[in-house]
C-alpha cells in the first residue's frame, strides 16, 4: 500500500477483518441472508455494492457541509435511490442482458443498511478521498463475508460452485454421491446463512479476543 498513507490504508484494511461490516458492525445482514445461496449472486452483489458505496460516499462527503442535520437520513436515502435508479436505467439502455442479471439486486442495494450506515458514520464527517476509501473498504469487507457464505452454501447445498458441478452428479450418483453423500437442502434456506455467519463471527472472535465486547 505504498500509494496510501498508513491512516488511509487502515480505512481499506480494517473493514476486511477487525472492523468487518457484517461480523463486527452487524450491518447488511438481510442481504447476506437473501442472496448467498449461490456464489455467483454473492459476487454480483459485491461488485454492485462496491460501486454504489464508492460513489455514494463521495457524493455524501461532497455535500456534507450543506446537508441540514434534521433531514440528513432522507437526503442519504435520496442519494442512494437516485444513484441506483440511474445506474439501472443506463444498464437497461446500453447493457440490457447485464441489467436483467442485476434486476433483483437493485432493491436490495437501496435497502442495504451498510450503505446508509457508512454515510451516517463516516462520509458525513470526513473528506472526499477518505470517504471513498472507507466506502471501498467496507464494500470489500462485506463482499468477503458474502463470498465465504455463498461458497459454503452453494457447495454444501447444491454441490456446485458458480453453477459447475464440483462434487459429481447427484442424480446419476457420480463423484462423492456414489459413496452415499447427499446435498444438504437446508443450506439453501436463509437460516443457514445466519448460522454460517455465526460460525465466522465465532472463529474471528476466538482468534482475536480483543473483538469480544464487554457486557
Amino acid at each position, binding site marked *: 500500500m505504498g500509494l496510501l498513507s498508513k491512516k488511509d490504508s487502515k480505512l481499506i484494511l480494517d473493514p476486511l477483518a477487525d472492523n468487518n461490516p457484517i461480523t463486527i458492525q452487524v450491518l447488511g445482514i438481510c442481504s447476506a441472508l437473501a442472496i448467498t*445461496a449461490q456464489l455467483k*449472486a454473492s459476487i454480483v452483489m459485491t461488485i454492485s455494492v462496491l460501486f454504489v458505496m464508492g460513489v455514494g460516499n463521495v457524493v455524501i462527503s461532497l455535500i456534507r457541509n450543506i446537508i441540514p442535520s*434534521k433531514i440528513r437520513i432522507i437526503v442519504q436515502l435520496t442519494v442512494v435511490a*437516485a444513484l441506483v435508479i440511474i445506474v439501472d*436505467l443506463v444498464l*437497461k439502455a446500453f447493457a*440490457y442482458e447485464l441489467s436483467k442479471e442485476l434486476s433483483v439486486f437493485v432493491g436490495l442495494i437501496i435497502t442495504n443498511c451498510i450503505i446508509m450506515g457508512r454515510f451516517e458514520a463516516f462520509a458525513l464527517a470526513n473528506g472526499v478521498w477518505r470517504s471513498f476509501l472507507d466506502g471501498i473498504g467496507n464494500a470489500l469487507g462485506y463482499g468477503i463475508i458474502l463470498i465465504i457464505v455463498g461458497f459454503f452454501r*452453494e457447495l454444501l447445498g447444491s454441490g456446485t460452485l458458480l453453477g459447475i458441478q464440483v462434487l459429481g452428479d447427484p442424480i446419476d450418483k457420480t463423484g462423492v454421491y456414489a459413496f452415499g453423500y447427499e446435498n444438504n437442502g437446508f443450506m439453501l*434456506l436463509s437460516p443457514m446463512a445466519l448460522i454460517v455467519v455465526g460460525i465466522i463471527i465465532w472463529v474471528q472472535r476466538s482468534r482475536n479476543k480483543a473483538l469480544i465486547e464487554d457486557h
Partner: protein
Amino acid sequence: MEKRTDKNSYTVIFAIAMVIIVGALLAFTASALKDRIAENKRIEKQQNILYAMGVNENEGNKANFVSKEKVAESFSKYITNQIVIQDGNETQDENAYLIDIKKEQTSAKDGNPRRLPLFIGEKEGQKFYIAPIRGKGLWDAIWAYVAMDKDMVVLGAYFDHKGETPGLGANIKERFFMDDFVGEHLMSNGSFKGITVSKSNGDPKNEDKKDNEVDAIAGSTITGDGVTAMLRSELQLYVPYFKNLKN
C-alpha cells in the same frame, strides 16, 4: 450560535431544491433512454418467443438467445403467423407479440373479454403454437412463453421473473428447470390438467412425460407453486382454440 444548516427555513429550502434537482435528473435520464429501453424490451420478447421454439444459441447448461443482430431475421423466418383470440374469434395481427399480458389480465378482471395472443411458428416441418403467459411468484411477477404442438404437448418453454430470490426461485430461468417441461403433456385423458411443479413426484430425471408433473427446485416452493398456478389458469384459456384445431 445556531448553525446555518439547522434553521427550519434552510431545511425546507434544501428539501425543495433536492427534490427538484433529483427529480429533474431522474426524469431526464428516464426520458432520454426511454426509446432505447423500449427497443431492448421488444427485442427481448422476440428472443423469448424464439427461445421457446428452440431457436437459440444454448451452450452447455447456459441458456442463450439468438443474438440481437439476428433476431429480426429469425423472427420473420420462423414465426409464420401471429393471431389474437378474443371470444373465440381469431384475428391476425403481426404485432400480437407486443400485447401487454398484464394489462389484458387487469382488463379481463373488469369484465372485458380477454385478448389472447398466440404465435405460430414452423421449424423443420414441426408446427409450434407459442403462448405468452404471466403469473405471480414469491416476490413479484413471473412470466413464460410456452411452445406447444397441436395436442398441447410442450415443445419448449422460456421462464422469466422480475424479482425471485437469486439462487432459489430465480432458477426457474435456468435450463435444468425449463428443459424439464419439454415433452410434458398439458392434457390428461382428453381434459386439461396443466403441469404441476411437484416436490414429491419421485421422478428427478423427469422421464415420465405423461404425469403432468415436473420436479421442483429445492427451497423455492412458492415460486414453483406460482409456476403451476400460472400454467394452469393461463393455458386453460387456450384449450378451446386447440380443440377447434383438431376438428
